[in-house]
């Protein structure tokens, strides 16, 4: 039994086998990347892990506990946080509120204790302050200070991607699923992101599953890479091995990767 195990995971949509008997084990504190051409089933794997889809077959186990069948909010509480390929933020809330929402599972202010937040010493205010402090660390870490009180909807694409990473980080997850976090970022932003992802692993002790199309980033950052095509596994191994695999070159990397 490993730390995070996926076993025989399968799901079909209509006749299409989007994820077809996928198995892999991720070690604690690993940066584990998933690559594959468009439509190969990468995002679907994330959706199966986070409980948005339910698999036709297979299990997802975190520290031995099967997560299949649980609702997304329960899975979040088990320690799995994620970002979305197409950004799912709370657009009409500020960056601060988006990150505070990442603290939701740790807070217990209810309707009444919230309504009676009168004065600094009320229960609700004390809880708010404590969590705002935590969130402020994330804001500093991801250098979001300048946009702290802005509405997320008004931010540039790259910044929004980053806020989403910050929100996932606020959940203090064991596992973080990042779905193409660098998409839409310029080179400089990508370099920063690469460093941050490594820091998230080191400083916050998070295991990272990463879907990426940027090959430079993938090769530089990953401990192991899982390559797939049409819902099926091609190869799993360290970057250098995967890079050389003929099927990967053919199915995904093309001439660029062969060079």
């Amino acid at each position: 039994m490993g730390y995070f195990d996926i076993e025989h995971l399968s799901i079909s949509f209509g006749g299409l086998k989007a994820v077809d008997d996928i198995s892999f084990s991720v070690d604690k504190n690993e940066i584990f990347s998933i690559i594959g051409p468009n439509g190969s089933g990468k995002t679907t794997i994330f959706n199966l892990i986070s409980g948005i889809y339910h698999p036709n077959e297979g299990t997802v186990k975190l520290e031995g506990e099967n997560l299949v069948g649980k609702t997304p909010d329960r899975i979040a509480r088990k320690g799995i946080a994620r970002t979305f390929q197409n950004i799912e933020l709370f657009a009409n809330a500020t960056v601060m509120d988006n990150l505070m929402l990442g603290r939701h599972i740790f807070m217990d202010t209810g309707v009444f204790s919230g309504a009676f937040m009168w004065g600094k010493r009320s229960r609700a205010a004390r809880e708010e302050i404590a969590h705002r402090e935590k969130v402020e660390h994330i804001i500093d870490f991801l250098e979001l200070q300048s946009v702290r009180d802005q509405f997320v909807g008004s931010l540039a694409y790259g910044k929004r991607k980053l806020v989403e990473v910050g929100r996932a980080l606020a959940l203090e997850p064991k596992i973080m699923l990042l779905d193409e976090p660098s998409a839409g970022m310029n080179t400089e932003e990508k370099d920063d992101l690469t460093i941050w992802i490594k820091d998230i692993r080191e400083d916050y002790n998070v295991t990272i599953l990463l879907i990426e199309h940027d090959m430079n980033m993938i090769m530089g950052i990953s401990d192991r890479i899982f390559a797939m095509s049409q819902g099926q596994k091609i190869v799993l191994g360290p970057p250098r091995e995967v890079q050389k695999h003929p099927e990967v070159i053919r199915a995904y990397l093309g001439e660029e990767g062969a060079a």
Partner: protein
Amino acid sequence: MDMKRAYYEDIELFKSGTILFWTIVLMVALFTLPLIATNYYLYLFNLIMVHVILAVGLNILVGSTGQISLGHAGFFAIGAYATVLLMTKLSIPFFPALILAAFIAAFFGFILGLPALRLEGPYLTIATLAFGLAIMHIIGHMEVFGGRSGLRAPDLNIGIPQLGWNLTLTTDFSKYYLVLIIAILMVLGAVNILKTKVGRAFVAIRDSDIAAEVIGINLTIYKTLSFAVSAFYAGIAGGLFAFVLGFFDPITFNMFLSIYFLVMIVVGGLGSIMGSITGAAFITYLMYALFKNIKDVPYVGDFLTAISQRWLSITGMDNLSAIALGFVMIGIMIFEPMGIFGVWIRIKKYWKTWPF
């Protein structure tokens, strides 16, 4: 990082001296107003404040959580009937009766929230509409509720008669202060709810329910909670409404009232507490003052009544005010989609950058 940063600043009620100053001015105005207002205006203000409470609650559901309700007249009715019946039939003192009635309304809100988990858009609208109609008809057919002939509110004794402590509010003047204080408490409560965990979860569900789920928000709990909170507000408003009116029957809580409530928050500004307040005040004024009195304006009133009787209904005017309200709403939506409150935000922005 500024280590001394006071995080409480972010959630403080009065973020700046200016806000505090204007709040005090407003409070002084509200508390001295009855000294100069006529009885008619006191009655109107009481209605406005009752509607403010309801609109603030409705806006939590519609504006902040992104659910819809065309059944709020039902919760309003539950609040009114339950408060009065708890007082008259069970001899429960006013305040506990009012709060109990609000919880009863909240319970019904929770029940109505259950189908909201599966229904969306027009389907949810129809379900809530049906709920409002059902409440009206159930009340109309049961003797305990006074049936079609309605119910008279008892004396508004806010003391505890069982302990021999009586304080009966008879005039609109004294009721004004009761309603005002409750309205202020309810508004502040809503401000705080929206600033803390529950309110943020509501907004999260509105903006992206899928993201809300993956950060650990239980949609079942929070959607039904939003309905319950909203219904609680409607229940408190209804309980006060019973005493402001003095007499009410099932027709008082008809479907159009639910629509007017929705108009209040749409016109005022969805998702904004200030918007709920301005919208409730504006629409109540139109409903109860302007359109009712327009009949008496020379020429204009005669003309409108004639049109109304010729084309709309023999009683005249009643339909006309509904139609006029519809036009007001369409006008505001065209020129200021963010509602009256949007105008205010624009003015504020304008002055910030003035004279550039």
